[in-house]
């Protein structure tokens, strides 16, 4: 066993509250218009104050930035716009000092076509180990069953390389050739890259696009058994050399399909629950709990050392790949009347605009995010209700500069506005003069303070991260009610998905004698008896109750 991680508990990720951010978008420390590690270091106090316990940093490696850094050209360095390796090491050290873990990206399905490996491969003889770092073909007809993911920009998973005089395989943009994981040398390089960052102190990796590592004829080239073999090899390497580190799988698949990424607790520690995210939005708009309960009922049990990663929004579009055609149509109608908001099979909007800037709806969904079984992830800016800009290309509209105050450039940078990597949001509703950190920190009724309190409350109760889930079935299906249990802790959560007040009768006879204590204000409610427990919920209202036994 080798280096110990910053966390004390090997399963620290189960209790974490993760904050996802772009270094380039967070704060500009050297005033060149691009966020950097020095800027992020300056804002660690803010993140500590918010209460998050883990930072997930989007790609910050050298890259031509044709896919926002997911086109890596050097795995063991820092993009010069963001700082240096020393800056990064300092960030890790200072985050750990604040008891925050740091998770970075491991983008291993593909590289940039500018990566030295690809430049070397295209000139290497066919069949040589260097050439075989990538997947080549004489024709573009292999693996015909593999779908095209970026439908709006790519026509094929194969592209012709004039230097190699061969086609190369790419599941995403054509400038992102897929690495060949049938080549042991590729796996060895990936492990070396992991060691490089783990030795600096990184606590975990988000494994980008992990279902697509391996290609086989006659398959859809997703979720193949050989892919899971690679994951297990990565995990074995991690466990052999390091303690208390974590692997998070990005596998946009149905829950049953994602289950394989956990293995028997010997593959990934965590994986995103993509379908739940979509169903939360559907359930809220339908004012109906069943889309949510159905997907959770389809969600398999996980090994004890594993955990779901939950989110409402992230740096990508709200993906609709894994829903039915009818559900996708409904989502488009419900949440993207503006066709510019649609991208690929998804909707490129932030949380607040999706919620129509309705504070109650934002709070309701966030309360579910924080109380469902899994680890919640907050996308930067969503804690203050930042908006987006659908006029910007690709997914850049949800990757705009963090809005720190009402000053020039939203306080993100003192560089001239035209030198910013992206324009700041400046519309009357979501613009930085209306929505910013400084004003919300001064306003104790703000969304920021609400989020801070909710994060603090969630951290007090490990039942949220580690407890079991049991849905109740009240007749009123506009109300979502569930119990979370762990050891002696029992928490009852009730959420009104409707825009109108709703009554609900809950069958809690099995908990007769317990007293529900509303957790936010620590207010005792009437004791539970044998008869149905009646509650009235305000529009989009929710309750979290700690059920205290009479003997207590």
């Amino acid at each position, binding site marked *: 066993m080798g280096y110990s991680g910053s966390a*004390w508990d090997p399963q620290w990720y189960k209790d974490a509250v993760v904050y996802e951010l772009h270094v380039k978008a967070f704060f500009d420390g050297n005033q060149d218009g691009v966020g950097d590690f020095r800027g992020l270091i300056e804002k660690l106090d803010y993140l500590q104050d918010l209460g998050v316990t883990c930072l997930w940093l989007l790609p910050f490696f050298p890259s031509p930035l044709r896919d926002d850094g997911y086109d890596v050209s050097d795995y063991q360095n820092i993009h010069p716009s963001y700082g240096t390796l020393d800056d990064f090491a300092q960030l890790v050290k200072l985050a750990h000092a604040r008891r925050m873990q740091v998770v970075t990206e491991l983008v291993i399905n593909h590289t940039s076509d500018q990566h030295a490996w690809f430049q070397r491969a295209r000139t290497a003889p066919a069949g040589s180990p260097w050439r075989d770092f990538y997947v080549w073909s004489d024709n573009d007809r292999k693996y015909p069953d593999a779908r095209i993911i970026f439908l709006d920009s790519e026509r094929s998973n194969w592209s012709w390389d004039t230097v190699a005089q061969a086609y190369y395989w790419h599941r995403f943009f054509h400038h992102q050739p897929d690495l060949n994981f049938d080549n042991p040398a590729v796996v060895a390089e990936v492990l070396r890259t992991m060691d490089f960052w783990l030795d600096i102190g990184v606590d975990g990796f988000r494994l980008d696009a992990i279902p697509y590592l391996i290609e086989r004829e006659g398959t859809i080239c997703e979720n193949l058994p050989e892919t899971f073999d690679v994951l297990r090899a990565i995990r074995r390497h991690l466990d052999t050399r390091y303690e208390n580190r974590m692997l998070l799988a990005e596998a946009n698949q149905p829950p049953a399909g994602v289950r394989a990424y956990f293995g028997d607790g010997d593959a990934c520690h965590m994986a995103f629950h993509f379908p739940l995210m979509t169903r939360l939005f559907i359930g809220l708009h339908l004012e109906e709990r069943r889309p949510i309960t159905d997907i959770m009922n389809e969600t398999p049990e996980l090994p004890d050392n594993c955990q779901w990663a939950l989110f409402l929004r992230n740096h990508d579009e709200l993906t609709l790949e894994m829903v039915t055609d009818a559900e996708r149509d409904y989502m488009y109608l419900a949440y993207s009347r503006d066709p510019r908001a649609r991208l690929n099979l998804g909707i490129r909007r932030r949380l607040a605009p999706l919620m129509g800037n309705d504070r109650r709806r934002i709070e309701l969904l966030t309360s579910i995010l924080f109380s469902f079984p899994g680890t919640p992830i907050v996308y930067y800016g969503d804690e203050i209700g930042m908006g987006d800009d659908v006029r910007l290309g690709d997914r850049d509209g949800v990757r705009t500069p963090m809005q720190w105050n009402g000053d020039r450039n939203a306080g993100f940078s003192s560089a001239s506005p035209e030198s910013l990597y992206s324009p700041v949001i400046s519309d009357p509703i979501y613009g930085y003069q209306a929505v910013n950190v400084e004003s919300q920190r001064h306003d*104790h*009724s703000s969304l920021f*303070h609400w989020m801070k*309190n909710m994060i*603090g*409350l969630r*951290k*007090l*109760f*490990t039942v949220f991260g580690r407890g079991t889930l049991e849905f109740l079935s009240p007749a009123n299906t506009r109300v979502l009610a569930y119990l979370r249990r762990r050891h002696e*802790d029992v928490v009852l959560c009730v959420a009104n998905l409707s825009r109108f007040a709703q009554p609900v009768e809950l069958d809690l006879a099995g908990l007769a004698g317990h007293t529900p204590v509303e*957790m*936010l*204000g*620590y*207010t005792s409610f009437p004791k539970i008896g044998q008869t149905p427990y009646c509650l009235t919920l305000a529009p989009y209202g929710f309750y979290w109750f*700690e059920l*205290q036994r009479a003997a*207590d």
Partner: protein
Amino acid sequence: MPPTDVVPPSDVVIGISGIEGTGALEAGIEAARTGIATYLDAARTRLVVAESEPVAGAHEQADAAAGSRVPVTAVAYDVDSRDLLRLPYHGLPGRAHALRALLAAARDSGASACAVIDASVAHAVTPEHVRWLIRPILDGQIDFVTPHYARHRAEGAITKSILSPMFRTVFGCPIRQPAVRDFGCSPGALRHLLAQRVWDEVGRDESVDIWITTEAAISGLRIGEAQFGPAQHAADAVNLSTALASVAGSLFAEVERRAAHWQRLRSLIPVCLLGPSTVAEGPEPDIDVHWLIESFQLGFADLKEVWSEILPPMAVLELKTLAQAPVDRFRLDDRSWARIVYDFAVGYHLQVIRRDHLLGSLAPLYLGWLSSFVLHTQHASAAAVEQRLEAVGQGFETEKPYLISRWRWPERFRS
């Protein structure tokens, strides 16, 4: 005898910490030796002295004092320079590392019981200390023994007004002096304390005593309170504000650290009283209540704006009324006092103002409580004073939901 990290096998280890002067050490060791001879097997008992570079040589004094009857071993520890650079600094430099060195020495020697005696009280150590810090542990009854020193009514009032009632309520452990520097512990308690990863934290020297007691209280260890006579502590050269800031700051830091624990705790753990009850000796010091009240009134005039940042409006109004009250009606209600202390703990947690300023502004409020307490108990018997203190503790317990709600959703109390 050079400092060593190797302590030979022993049944009992008695560690001396916080060495401040060889005279005190010598007296303490002599008393410990008498206690050992009376209550323990001297051949299987070892004295361990923690020693850092600045006090090198103390072990020779210890050795000489103990003679050949009780072997003495010195263990080395480091002083963290980060602590010395921290301002304001209230702790004994290197105290946390000294304690860790002593506990590790006891663990490594395979001791069945360990006691730590602070040099500041070493001159007042009696054979009874050795008996009650060690014997209950050797007998398998207790895992952690903490002393209670008999004090006069207004002595140790920071502990009586803040530390003890809040510790009892928050951590569910009704011990009366949670910040005392002496303690006894079992092998299990030793292992538990040493396994914690907080010994190297900046500021730990200042708060290590309260941290140790807190860790024992919340870890399911069986706790005993040994009742001793007057402590006759060597007076620390600190003023009231500094002492208050140190004690309250250490307590609030533990409250912040253990929030996930105490917010679900709804009962008291049993504490076994050890030894006969004791009373303070000698004449009771004179208390100038008028000076205390004037200090409170002056504090209200100067600090009410600061207090308004920490306390809800109703509490500030109550204090205003109190500041205007004549002496014969100067009473600070127990529950009001509990809420004030809780509000300061929440303010410390939220850092509503700089923490040193917050703790400094607590001093006049404390003097207001002390005025009320002295006036209320001026003709009371010792038993009545104890009842009064019990009522203070109950006030803190009654208001615990207030602390929880304020902690979880603080801005609801703001206008």
